[in-house]
C-alpha cells in the first residue's frame, strides 16, 4: 500500500514501511463470518421440536423442546426466557416463556405454561401442541438471573403461579452443580392442586438443606394445613425470616408486583435487593393513572407505518399488538417494556408509554418508544 507523500519527511519512516512489508508477507485472513460466531450463543432463530408434553397440573403443561438439528441448545443463565414466534388465527405474534429446566441440560429447554383466562398464546399452546410439532423461537435472553457480582449466595424467591418456572431452573442448577448457594422459595398458589412441580420441589428440599420450599395457598380447602393467604410481609417474614438484604426475586402475574413491592418495602427491604421478572404490562392503558383523563381509551385512531401503509386501532390496544394484527412485525422478545427490541420512532402524533417501558433519556427527547408498552393517543405515524 502506498504511503502518504508526507510520510517520507519523518525519521524512522523506512522502519515502518519495512514492518508493513513484513506483515504483508506473513499475513493471515481475518475471521469475517462474524454472524456465524455470534450464532453460537445468540442464534437469530432456534428451530425446535416438541419432544414431550408433560402434564404438571390440571391447568399446566411442560413442553420439552429440543433443537430440530439435533445440536445442543445455546447455554443460558437460569431465569432467562426464550420468545416463541407463532402464528395464531392468521396473526403472527410472539410470547416470552421462562425456561424451567436446568442450564446444565442443553439437550432440551422446558417451557412450563399455565392456562390463563383469555390468554391467547398460552391456551393455544395447551390446546394444540403435541409431541413432534415444530416451534420457532429466539435464543435465550433476559436479565432476571443470578448475578454473582452483587446478588450474594443467600437468596429468596417469591413466586406466584407459573412464575415458579425460573425459580425451578435456578433450583435445579444449584442442585445439579452443587453450588454453595442457599435459595428459599416461597411459592404462592390458589389451591393445593395448582402447585406446579410440587413433588419435585418437595423431594429436592428434603435432600438438599440449601433449598427451602414453602407453599402458600390463597384459597385452601379443608385438607390444607400449611400457610395460607398471599405472600404478605407477615407471611414472608414468618417463613423466610428477616430478609437482611438477601437478594429477593419476584416472578408471577403482572398484578402481583405492585403488591409484592409494598410488602417488601414494609419489611424494610431495600429496593436494590429486589429483582422483578418483566412479565407484561400491569395496567390496561385507560386504567393507568397517568393516562390523559380527557382521552377515551376505547376510541379508534389511525396508525401509519412510514412508507408501508396505515390501519385503524383502538387507543388501548398496545401498539405492538395493533401492528401485529395488521401484518407488521417488530421483533419483540419480552413484550414487557424491557428488552427494547420492539422500539419504534414516532414520526408524527403522540403516544402514551406505560411505566414498564425502560426508555432512555434520548428516547424521550428524540421520539423513540417501545411499541409493546405504547398506546397511540392521537393519529400517529411510526417508523421501524
Amino acid at each position, binding site marked *: 500500500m502506498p504511503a502518504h507523500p508526507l510520510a517520507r519527511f*519523518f525519521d524512522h519512516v523506512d522502519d515502518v514501511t519495512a514492518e508493513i512489508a513484513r506483515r504483508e508477507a506473513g499475513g493471515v485472513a481475518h475471521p469475517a463470518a462474524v454472524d456465524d460466531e455470534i450464532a453460537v450463543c445468540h442464534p437469530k432463530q432456534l428451530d425446535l421440536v416438541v419432544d414431550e408434553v408433560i402434564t404438571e397440573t390440571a391447568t399446566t403443561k411442560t413442553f420439552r423442546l429440543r433443537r430440530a438439528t439435533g445440536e445442543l441448545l445455546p447455554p443460558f443463565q437460569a431465569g432467562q426466557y426464550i420468545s416463541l414466534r407463532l402464528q395464531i388465527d392468521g396473526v403472527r405474534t410472539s410470547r416470552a416463556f421462562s425456561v424451567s429446566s436446568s442450564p446444565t441440560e442443553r439437550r432440551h429447554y422446558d417451557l412450563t405454561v399455565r392456562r390463563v383466562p383469555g390468554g391467547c398464546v398460552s391456551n393455544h399452546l395447551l390446546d394444540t401442541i403435541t409431541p413432534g410439532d415444530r416451534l420457532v423461537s429466539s435464543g435465550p435472553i433476559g436479565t432476571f438471573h443470578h448475578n454473582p457480582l452483587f446478588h450474594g449466595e443467600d437468596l429468596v424467591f417469591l413466586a406466584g403461579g407459573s412464575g415458579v418456572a425460573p425459580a425451578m431452573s435456578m433450583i435445579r442448577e444449584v442442585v445439579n452443580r452443587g453450588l454453595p448457594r442457599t435459595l428459599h422459595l416461597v411459592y404462592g398458589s390458589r389451591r393445593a392442586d395448582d402447585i406446579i412441580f410440587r413433588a419435585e420441589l418437595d423431594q429436592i428440599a428434603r435432600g438438599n438443606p440449601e433449598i427451602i420450599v414453602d407453599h402458600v395457598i390463597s384459597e385452601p380447602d379443608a385438607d390444607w394445613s400449611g400457610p395460607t393467604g398471599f405472600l404478605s410481609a407477615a407471611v414472608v417474614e414468618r417463613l423466610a425470616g428477616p430478609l437482611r438484604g438477601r437478594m429477593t426475586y419476584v416472578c408471577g402475574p403482572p398484578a402481583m408486583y405492585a403488591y409484592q413491592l409494598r410488602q417488601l418495602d414494609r419489611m424494610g427491604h431495600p429496593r436494590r435487593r429486589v429483582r422483578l421478572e418483566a412479565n407484561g404490562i400491569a395496567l390496561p392503558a385507560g386504567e393507568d393513572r397517568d393516562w390523559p383523563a380527557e382521552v377515551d381509551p376505547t376510541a379508534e385512531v389511525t396508525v401509519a407505518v412510514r412508507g408501508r401503509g396505515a390501519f385503524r386501532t383502538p387507543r388501548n390496544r398496545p401498539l405492538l399488538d395493533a401492528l401485529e394484527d395488521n401484518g407488521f412485525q417488530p421483533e419483540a422478545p419480552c413484550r414487557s417494556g424491557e428488552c427494547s427490541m420492539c422500539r419504534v420512532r414516532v414520526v408524527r402524533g403522540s403516544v402514551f408509554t406505560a411505566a414498564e417501558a425502560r426508555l432512555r*433519556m434520548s428516547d424521550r427527547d428524540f421520539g423513540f418508544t417501545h411499541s409493546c408498552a405504547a398506546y397511540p393517543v392521537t393519529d400517529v405515524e411510526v417508523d421501524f
Partner: protein
Amino acid sequence: MSDDYDAIVIGAGNAGLSSAATLQRGGRRTLLLERHNIPGGAATSFVRGRFEFEVSLHQLGGMGNGPLRQVLDQLDVTRRLKFVEERDLYRTVVPGVLDITLPAEWQGVADAIEDSFPGNRARVESFLELCHEVGNWQLAVRASLHQPQEQAAWLRGLPRVRRNGLRPAKEVLDEYFDDDRIKHVLASYWSYNGQPPSTLPFMDLARILTLYLEYKPYHLHGGSQAMSSAMLDSFLEAGGDVRFNSNVAEIRTRQGTVVGVRLDNGDEYDARMVVSNASAVTTYTRMLDPTVVPDSVLRDLRSRRLGISGTITYLGLDATARELGFTAGTNMITSELAENTVRDSMFSLGPTPYVVASCYDVNPIGFAPPRASHVAIFSVQYGRVWDTLAPEDYARAKYAYAQSQLDLVEVISPGLRDVIEEAEVATPHTLRRYLGHPGGAIYGFDQDITDSWLFRDADLKPNVPGLFLLSAWTTAGGYNPTIVTAARFSQRLLQL
C-alpha cells in the same frame, strides 16, 4: 419513497451518521441503512432498573473550539445537545506507588506533576510543549490534506514533529524523564488508543493529550445516544431517509462499479455512491463480489491486525460519587508500573491488572437517579482470548473477570461492592455482537504506527469504484476522529 438515491450509507455509527448528514445537507439524496433499531453503533446507551448506562463514551474530545465542535456546528447538531465540561483530565493510581489527578490545562498538568514529583517542572513543560506541537500538527494537517504542497512546506519547518512523530511514546518519554512514575502518569491515555506506551505512536499520544488539554474533555447530557440521535435528526430534517432493522447483505456492482445495495430480506436500493460504516473486513470480504475487490486490498487486510476490544463492567451504585470516593470522572488504575503485566493481560482471562473507571456522576450526565451513580469499568482486551472458551464456560469467565475489575476499583472506592444495584458485563463477544466487528474490535485495526494514516493512504480511496469506507477501520478510532474525518471526507464527496 423512491428507491433511487445519490448515496447510500451502510451503518448509522458515528462515521455513518456524520457522513449521511453531510451528504444530505449538501444536497445529495441519501439513504441511511442501519441493522439495529436505533442510530449510534457504539455511541449508545441502555437501561437497567433505575439507571441508564453510557456504553462507550469516556471523554468527548475536540469540543471547545476544536475540530469536532466545528463539524457539529456545520451539521446543525450542537444546539440540540447539552454538553458537560469536565475539570480534570484523569486521576492515575498505582496502589502504594502514586495517586495523582491531572487537571485539564497545560499549565495545571505541569503544576500537578511538580507537586507530586518535585524537581521535574522543566522536563514536564518541555515535554508538553512537544506534545502541543505534534498534537496540533496532527489535528490541523488532517483538515487540509488536499493541499499537498502547503502541507509539505509546513512539515519541513517542523523538525521536532518529523523527528518524534513516528517514535513509540515510551521512547520519547524515556528521553525526557528518569522517573518511571511520571512516564506512567503522562502515558495514561494509552488505553484510548489501545497500544501500551512501547507501541503507542507518540504522535497519537500527543494528539489525544492536545484534544483534551487544548479543547477540554466533555460529557453529554443524555450520553452519546443523545448525539447519535441529534445527528440523525439533522439528517432527517434535511430530507434524508433512514431505514432501521435493515441489514445489508451485499453491495451490488456492475462491471466492477458500485450500483447499490441488497438487504438480507432481498430489498434492493440503487445508488452510484455507497459509503460503508461497517468494518473494512466485512465490507471487502462479505459484502462484495470477490472478483471486484483488488488483490492489493485483500493483501493489505491480511497484513493488518485486529485491534483491541474490551471487557466493560457497568455498575449502577446506590451512593453518590463523593460517598464512593470518586473525585475525578476518569480514573486509570494499574496494579503496578510494569508495562508487560498490562500487555500480557490483554491476551489473558486472568485477573486484570488495569482498569479505566469512569464515573459519570462527578459531573452528572443525568443517567443515575438522585443520590446514586453510574460507573463503567473498562479493561483493554483482545477478542481472541475469549474465543478459547467453551460456550458453557463463558458466563462464569465473564463474572470472574469482572470481579477482578471490581477488586482494582475498590482501591479508590472501598465498599463499592456493598452498594451495587445493577451490574452488567460486556466482553469482546458482546461488542462483536453489537458492532458486528470481527474480534469485537472497537477501533478497527491495531493502532500501532503501521496503522497511521501516513501509511494507509489507500484506506479512504475508492478501491472499488463508487465505494468509500468511513469508520474506525479507516481512520483513528474514537468519537472526534471518526465523526470529523467522515464529515470532512464527505464534504469532498460532494464535489464529485
